């Protein structure tokens, strides 16, 4: 207990303050944003820093029905700010309209990236940062529609990314 003198209290307080500053100043997904930005560079997709995007991710590890559900959602989103990142060629490259917004990952990085997207997921991305990630529940794939709707209600800046 002798070490808990006034200096110790001061140092602890400063450390706590510094940590809090870091959290409030950065994104909730700070680590994930760094990882995803480095991944996006490898895709060579034309991403603007001041825009908002929806990235629909269908990795090989995801359940087939979950991937299909999100692909259907993607194929109805006419806005150019919705991209599909996939590691499965099946069914995904047939449409010439959608082709430009599909990134096929043949490197396997999408299946191993350290983001919580092992099942089919949507990444909300704006101003160069991840704002949210939602994944499909394999027991109720439709429930992601509600999650996305709720998200868009709160974060109005993303509405243009999905709707025409």
């Amino acid at each position, binding site marked *: 207990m002798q070490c808990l003198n006034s200096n110790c209290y001061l140092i602890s307080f400063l450390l706590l303050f510094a940590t809090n500053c870091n959290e409030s100043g950065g994104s909730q997904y700070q680590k994930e944003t760094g990882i995803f930005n480095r*991944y996006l560079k490898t895709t060579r997709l034309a991403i603007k820093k001041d825009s908002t995007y929806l990235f629909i991710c269908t990795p090989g590890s995801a359940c087939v029905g979950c991937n299909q559900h999100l692909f259907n959602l993607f194929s109805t989103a006419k806005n150019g700010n919705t991209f599909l990142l996939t590691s*499965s060629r099946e069914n995904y490259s047939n449409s010439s309209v959608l082709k430009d917004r599909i990134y096929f990952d043949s490197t396997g*990085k999408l299946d*191993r990236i*350290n983001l919580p997207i092992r099942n089919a997921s949507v990444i909300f991305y704006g101003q160069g940062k991840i704002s949210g990630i939602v*994944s499909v529940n394999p027991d109720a794939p439709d429930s992601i529609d509600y999650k996305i709707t709720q998200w868009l209600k709160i974060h109005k800046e993303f509405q243009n990314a999905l709707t025409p």
Partner: protein
Amino acid sequence: MQNNTKLSPKNIRWFIKPPDILLSFLLFSILSSLTSCEHAKLPEASCTAYLTDSITFPCQTRILSSVVYGSDKKTNSYFYDDEDNQRVICFNDKGSSIDAISYPHSLPIGKISGFYAITEDSFAFIEHKKLFLYGVKSKKIKGFDIGGYGIKCEGAFGQYPLEISDSLAFYYSFEDTFAINTQKKWELYMRLTYNETVFNLNRERIENIKAGGFPIEIYPDSNCYYSFCPARCINYKQHEIIYLYQQSNTIYIYNYLNKTFRKTIVPNPHFYPNEKFDMNKIGDFDYISKYLTENCRNQNIIYNKFKNEYYLTSTYKRNYENSNSDETASPIDKTWSILVLDSNFSIKTEINFPAKKYDFASILALQKGVLVGYYSNFNSTSNYSKYAVFEF
């Protein structure tokens, strides 16, 4: 009293006295030697991969079955063409020839869920609730309706759900009818839905000798460890069905003549018991991937009827996240081994495999040893498959 003594580099030596250091060193040496003794119990096989590149198919394939025949003990190994679901490819070991055997087009063949080579020119397979016996030369086919037993899909990946000995056919299957998303449903699934169905093929009508859920004795506990069914194999000589769960080294043995169970433990010192799987996260694929990577898992147990021995494949745990990388590990990044067990489940030898090169779910017992598929066989971008034979 030493209560007032402050810790400082000068007086720290009084807390760790020379005799203590000596004692610690001795203890460490004894413990280390104990550990190394335990590891030394497993003699490593001086096996060699031969014919490594000689079995290569220009398509993605899956191992099906093998048969030995003739006085010169020729071996036919059968593979399933995953790209053309109506084709079985046969590799003849003596002549090193590859012959494609196609199903007769008059049959509504889709994806088979079990295959067994009975002789060099006859085999059995299961497709859509029917068991077929097929003569390669005669082109004759006989079908048995096995519907009504609730057979929905084949056993675990890498398993051999159909096996035949003399006139008995064993088919391992399980229901796949409802989502398992609660602990209760998990327990229900474990108790109701696994089938080992045994048919007597010599009768005019297929006789169902045993069907239904496994007896309660086989369930180790009510905890979930993610795996949904045990691996199983048949030892015809001893009339036994062998079951192995992924999370433990306990082997459950059912004698189908006496209808009795017994169990034994394989003392694999590299294998650590699994943590309990959180059923609330059954739909969380990230959690599942981490769980399967950070736990040791027994993948399969295969009986080699030619050598009267078992092959137990185990993958070993490793870290899922790496602070120096943007990528996580996955179950295929784990090193793995085949434990060769004698007919009493004692360890004879161990063969260690590096991660990612060979596929632990693609193994076939041969007269010489084991046939192991290369991992690239299941890479979605590869259009060929390759196998190596390990002799020990």
